């Protein structure tokens, strides 16, 4: 396990580009080296619903966009020149065609993209709605169903139907490749639990112990587990964090049990949300947006930008031997109501990183 340092990490410096996906297209927001002035690109694929926009860290030039429009079918676009030009995949992710008379599945949208392992150039994974797992071996030009789960009766039962759960359709997401081992994979399904493979996808096992489910449902039923986002710590690949429908969790492998660290969140905030983003260098720091906080900020109109909480997991095992300390200090990037409006007024003058 990577030892922690108690010395505060210095903020990263240098030019940065933010990749932004929206329901109306994608944008690249480029900052200068001082990160004081920002330039927004023209819209990419204007009018497309962008579900995921991901840069390939292996060459830092290739980008993939998973998108669709309101009426056209799902597809993937690919750029090999850092977003200057885009070409559509020749064979987008699609389920196998079933024989006449059988009910086959149809990919509604590609929801998630993950670059493959550094030792496997041009490999990518994709997760879809309804839930399916796909892989490309040629940089996203052609996609094939990956592993057995798309048509496995047990997995199909856990996946449920498009009528279950998520309003925009159930999703396979959070595909994670262990940076130390290309055969060690994770993925999550909302709903349908968290799953792990140690043999390159030949087999998967559930990883749901310790996770709560909605009251009244049986946690032994994998179908009712609803992970919203799972992330592997870049600075400690044995640690994963999870934002679940029922709380925020951490797991330290080889343990198979998730710990609900979100219970230490302030009650007025709660620990129910959708996203979670980890600090690139500090394995104890994460950012999340929680429902209660979001609802308060957005008010009745539903307009505005939700606040992002910067959470420090002080209970994570580390150089203090795992002794529990204070729970989850929360750092808001702006305490005032109307955060979204002030952001819009000031355009790109986004507050700097929160600090303790």
């Amino acid at each position, binding site marked *: 396990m990577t030892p922690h340092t108690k010395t505060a990490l210095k903020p990263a410096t240098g030019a940065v580009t933010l990749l932004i996906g929206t329901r109306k297209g994608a944008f690249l927001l480029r900052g200068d080296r001082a990160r004081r002035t920002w330039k927004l690109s023209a819209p990419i694929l204007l009018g497309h619903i962008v579900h995921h926009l991901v840069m390939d860290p292996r060459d830092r030039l290739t980008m993939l966009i998973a998108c669709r*429009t*309101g009426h056209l079918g799902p597809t993937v676009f690919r750029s090999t020149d850092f977003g200057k030009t885009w070409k559509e995949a020749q064979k987008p992710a*699609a389920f*196998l065609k079933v024989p006449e008379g059988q009910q086959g*599945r149809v990919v509604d949208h590609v929801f998630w993209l993950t670059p493959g392992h550094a030792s496997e150039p041009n490999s990518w994974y994709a997760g879809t709605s309804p839930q399916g797992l796909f892989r490309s071996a040629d940089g996203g030009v052609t996609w094939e169903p990956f592993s057995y789960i798309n048509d496995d009766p047990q997995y199909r039962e856990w996946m449920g139907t498009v009528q279950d759960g998520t309003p925009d359709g159930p999703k396979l997401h959070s595909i994670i490749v262990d940076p130390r081992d290309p055969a060690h994979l994770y993925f999550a399904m909302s709903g349908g639990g968290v799953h792990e493979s140690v043999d390159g996808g030949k087999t998967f096992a559930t990883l749901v112990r310790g996770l709560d489910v909605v009251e009244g449902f049986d946690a032994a039923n994998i179908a009712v587990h609803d992970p919203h986002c799972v992330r592997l710590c870049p600075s400690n690949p044995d640690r994963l964090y999870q934002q679940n429908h029922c709380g925020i969790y951490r797991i330290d492998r080889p343990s198979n049990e998730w710990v609900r660290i979100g219970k230490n969140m302030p009650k007025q905030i709660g620990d129910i949300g959708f996203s979670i983003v980890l600090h690139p260098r500090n394995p104890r720091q994460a950012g999340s947006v929680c429902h209660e906080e979001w609802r308060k900020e957005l008010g009745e109109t539903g307009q505005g930008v939700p606040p992002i909480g910067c959470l420090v997991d002080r209970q994570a095992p580390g150089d203090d031997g795992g002794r529990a300390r204070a729970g989850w200090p929360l750092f808001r990037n702006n305490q005032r109501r109307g955060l979204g409006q002030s952001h819009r007024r000031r355009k790109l003058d986004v507050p700097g990183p929160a600090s303790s």
Partner: protein
Amino acid sequence: MTVFIPTPLRSYTRQKGEVDAQGATLGEVLSALDRRYPGLRFRIITEQDTIREHIRIFVNEEQARDLSAALRTDDEIHIICALSGG
């Protein structure tokens, strides 16, 4: 026969709104179009060979329900995308 292309699909047809195509059935015509304009077919036809939910295809003034619809050489095919918003 003539196939009328809606604006969301004209990025595939080099912005042409009308293209010529040949085929004895709707499926054959769309396959021929896809060979000439790669990627177009999958945006309107699913991997199970059904017409996508928010797409309608008319042969002359009759709606085609599936790819087996028979065609004549003088037919007009209209691909229509649903509109939404407001």
